[in-house]
């Protein structure tokens, strides 16, 4: 009985027309749906991620911040929906990914330099090309530690620096960062944050950053993407436009404080809801 009554409802749901994002959109997400254990985490989720911008993803616990970027990066399969990079599928797109747990992301059987060069070797680059790119990376990151060591011989911050270098080595179109600073001490966090900003200013690589630290999320962002509790929707997309390079002085600028305050308000509203 129920089934009969409900049947037309399903039939009547029109397939939504694909609407492209505004100009300058890099990643277009349409109708993304993902269930976990029978419960919707994302349902018909739409999002446009702009090109040459840093987007920080922030939201309540368990709303699936990491899941979102993992789905975009193809690490977790999606139930349905469409994710396009400049109109291309993931298969035709070069991406970089920085994990929170650098210890389990680097390959300890390779020297650090070979870890960084690994994605280039996967692309079948010649030794000359690899060497040239390595020199370039070392220069732009201003590396002060010995890359011929094994990753486990380096400090946490050095390992995370190396894994960011590895992610950037093949000049990816998009760089995903999943809480890259959470396992680091404060000093290292500041250092890598600056490096990341420098690299972004040099290359303009689109970055999607998941963070659980609001200050850091706003500090690096051009847009703060605030998510709701599950089933997750976009609560608000907050632009933050202070010029780069941002410095520690930026942290006390009224515009920064305002952006942070506004983010916090939205966050708290969503948590209480």
């Amino acid at each position: 009985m129920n089934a009969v009554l409900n049947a037309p409802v399903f039939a009547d749901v029109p397939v939504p027309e694909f609407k492209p994002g505004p100009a300058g959109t890099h990643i277009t997400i349409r109708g993304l749906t993902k269930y976990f254990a029978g419960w919707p985490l994302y349902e018909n989720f739409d999002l446009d991620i702009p090109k040459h911008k840093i987007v920080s993803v922030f939201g309540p616990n368990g709303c699936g911040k990491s899941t979102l970027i993992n789905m975009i990066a193809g690490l977790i399969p999606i139930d349905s929906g469409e994710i396009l990079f400049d109109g291309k599928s993931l298969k035709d797109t070069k991406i970089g990914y920085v994990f929170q747990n650098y210890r389990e992301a680097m390959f300890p059987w390779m020297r650090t330099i070979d870890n960084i060069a690994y994605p280039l070797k996967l692309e079948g680059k010649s030794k000359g090309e690899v060497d040239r790119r390595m020199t370039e990376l070392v220069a732009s990151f201003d590396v002060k530690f010995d890359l011929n060591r094994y990753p486990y011989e380096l400090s946490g911050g050095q390992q995370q620096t190396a894994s960011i270098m590895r992610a950037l080595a093949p000049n990816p179109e998009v760089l995903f960062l999943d809480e890259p600073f959470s396992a680091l001490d404060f000093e290292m966090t500041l250092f890598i944050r600056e490096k990341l900003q420098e690299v972004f200013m040099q290359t303009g690589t689109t970055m999607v950053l998941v963070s659980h630290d609001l200050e850091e999320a706003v500090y690096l962002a051009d847009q703060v993407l605030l998510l709701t509790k599950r089933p997750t929707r976009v609560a608000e997309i907050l632009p933050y436009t202070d010029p780069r390079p941002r410095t520690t002085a930026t942290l006390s600028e009224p515009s920064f404080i305002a952006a942070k305050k506004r983010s916090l308000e939205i966050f708290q509203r969503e948590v209480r809801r």
Partner: protein
Amino acid sequence: MSTSTTPHKAPTAWVPPASSDAAAAPRKADWGRALPFVGPVVLFIIWDLAVRLGFIKAILLPPPVDALGALLGGLAGGPLLGDFLVTVWRTVQAFLIAAVLGMPLGVLLGSNEKAYRSVEFLIDFFRSTPSSALIPLFLMVFGVSDINKVAIAAFGALLIVVFNSAYGVINARKQRVMAAKVMGATRWQVFKDVLIWESLQPSFVGLRSAVSMALVIVIVAEMFIGADSGLGNRIINSQQVMNVKDMYASILAAGALGYALNVLFLLIERKIVHWSGR
């Protein structure tokens, strides 16, 4: 019997030197370095006293000096050396067969979980079956030959190697596999650049247990499958004629062999799997 197992267990106290190099103050270090010798020395003193004071008849247990003398004399070119080398050779052969067949097989099974699940019960079952229980079966197949001893030892060792290598691949850190995938690695590249390496450490644990297992089975086989050489054969022969000095010397030699093999594998492992535990 219980006294016979203790002498070759006691040297296990040797393992700590590697970890004791963290000893702090130099004055304490002098003491710390002597610590591993305490166990064996105390054992030999108790052993000596037990014989001297007549708690155990000298015909069952010779004084430790005699046993050690027979061991050193025997290994320094005496007949014990020949049997020792035969046992080493059989163990090495069995181990090599197990390693060469087992590691690739384990890695392949591990990388195809469906394949592994379908043979898991067999592996677990035969791994749990005492290999010595299969000796009569192997006797029927291979007869009373040298091949038999190597074959049964290789079989017992093989299952351990397969099991450990397969689980090494299955339990490879998911994140390393994901990292390789996100960089665009194909299935084959993930296999050869990540899975094989991830499986190395558990594989070495398997190899180390396997060489111990091979030695145990070789010794048992030498005792009971019409052998005319090897430490097992020597132990049982000297027991039959109540040549206890030689019996204890052979037991100690077997213990030293087992211990040396274990240490050797630990050293090789530390060299090859240099990242283990870091």
